[in-house]
């Protein structure tokens, strides 16, 4: 790549910057391994560069040639936070390619699991954010709220982290909801709504927290759109984009798309808090109107299909899966996770903030470098 074609961040690459603060790949301030270089002038970050690649395990390579059912359950191991999103999207690809109808009851159970996962992911984000802020009391309080969600997920899928609910044609028999489980979910939702509302009131009325996070790590709306950012990070800059609005699975449900205007840490945290309440709303509708009937459609035939694509909205944004089927086996698997676009947002959010706020600016975009380490090919434009 020659000098003129280099993608420049801000205007700073051409200036001489005195100090570089490198962090990583394993660093005490960051839980996940990644490398960030902060170019600092007078304690203000002028430029930032995030490098990933140490986590690459090549899941797509392992998927290549596996029977499609096995490959689907392997996608769950891409990420331990949004595992259900990966397996759901991977199953959707096969269902779309083979034209399989999913029973309505199974559809609702999938939605319940996905929204519970969104709850646990957002609560983890808030807890991690508060820990980075230095407010450990809030962090512990959020971890305690999150336990309710984890218990419900364990009840549905049998495991706290990787529950593996969707299979091709429906959901696993283990995930069938009986009257007792439905009642537990309803009770859990009541408890969560109360606790999250309490937390939100306490959070926004805390002057220390508010002064710490207002106007810090601002990501401009134009930058967010230009970088193809997705998910809550984009909605925190005031753009009301949510693929759940376009997914036919979410058609029967009423919910609002939450936006905030500023794109700073405060907007990002508040978007997640308010989205939690929307998720609770969706779960309540799905549980209260759970259709009767079977949960798996087993009358389908395997055939060879061309490459099929599927997009869904996951806790961090837009997730893409695609593969072709050949004799029941997976070919040309591609996975694109939302954080790969959000890395750009993290770099931009750092610029202009004080060096002590840089870590907060990275965390506000909800990084998940584990999912993001995919093999990508850089094409020279």
């Amino acid at each position, binding site marked *: 790549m020659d000098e003129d074609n280099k993608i420049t961040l801000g205007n700073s690459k051409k200036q001489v910057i005195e100090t570089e603060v490198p962090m990583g790949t394993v660093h005490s301030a960051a839980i996940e391994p990644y490398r960030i270089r902060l170019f600092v002038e007078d304690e203000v970050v002028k430029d930032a560069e995030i490098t990933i690649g140490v986590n690459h*395990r090549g899941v797509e390579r*392992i998927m290549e040639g596996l029977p499609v059912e096995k490959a689907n359950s392997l996608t769950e*191991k891409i990420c331990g936070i949004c595992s259900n999103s990966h397996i759901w999207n991977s199953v959707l690809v096969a269902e779309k390619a083979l034209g399989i109808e999913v029973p309505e009851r199974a559809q609702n159970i999938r939605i319940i699991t996905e929204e519970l996962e969104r709850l646990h992911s957002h609560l983890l984000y808030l807890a991690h954010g508060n820990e980075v802020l230095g407010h450990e009391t809030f962090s512990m309080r959020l*971890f305690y709220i999150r336990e309710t969600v984890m218990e419900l997920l364990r009840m549905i899928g049998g495991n706290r982290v*990787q529950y593996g609910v969707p299979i091709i044609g429906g959901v696993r028999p283990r995930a069938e909801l009986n009257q007792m489980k439905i009642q537990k979910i309803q009770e859990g939702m009541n408890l969560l709504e109360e606790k999250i509302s309490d937390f939100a009131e306490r959070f926004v009325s805390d002057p220390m927290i508010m002064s710490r996070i207002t106007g810090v790590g601002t990501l401009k709306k134009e930058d967010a759109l230009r970088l193809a950012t997705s998910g809550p990070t984009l909605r925190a800059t005031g753009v009301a984009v949510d693929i759940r609005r376009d997914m036919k699975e979410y058609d029967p449900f009423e919910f609002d798309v939450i936006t905030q205007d500023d794109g700073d840490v405060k907007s990002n945290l508040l978007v997640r808090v308010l989205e939690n309440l929307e998720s609770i709303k969706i779960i309540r509708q799905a549980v209260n109107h759970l259709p009767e009937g079977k949960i798996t459609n087993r009358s389908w035939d395997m055939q060879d299909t061309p490459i099929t694509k599927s997009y869904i909205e996951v806790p961090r944004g837009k997730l893409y899966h695609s593969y072709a089927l050949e004799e029941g086996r997976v070919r040309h698997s591609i996975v694109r996770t939302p954080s790969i676009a959000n890395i750009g947002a993290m770099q931009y959010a750092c610029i202009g903030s004080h060096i002590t706020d840089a870590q907060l600016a990275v965390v506000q975009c909800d990084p998940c470098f584990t999912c993001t380490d995919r093999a990508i090919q850089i094409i020279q434009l």
Partner: protein
Amino acid sequence: MSLKSYSRARAVHVMLVYTGGCNGCDIEIVNCIFSPKYDAEQYKIFLTWNPREADVLVVTGPVTKHNEKPLKAIYEAIPEPKAVIAAGACALMGGVYKNIHGDIPSEEISGPVDKIIPVDAKVPGCAVRPEDVLAGAVAALPKLLDAE
């Protein structure tokens, strides 16, 4: 119990190193120390991110090629006596990532952990349960407390 091991038992610092797993185990381990439900801090087990301060190293993930050197460096930086816990299926045997199709090894993974650094306690599970992590930490403690 000597004075040294008495005082050591009252400040066990755990360092978590993440070497390329799926994040599931890491969150469960952080959860079992921070979450008030499990709350390992009540047993005087604290989470630290500084290897020079740590007594117990908890390793998760199958150790990707890029993470091998940092892991060794972190292990060297921890002062004696030290204990290592390998947590999760990936850390124990490479998990789903170690072999591509039968016995063809993946070129990305150089784990499992006990090939790279000596391991004292092994915690199984995919992902590990917080209760099991606490049990693993307790199993590794005698090595710290009985050391000279």
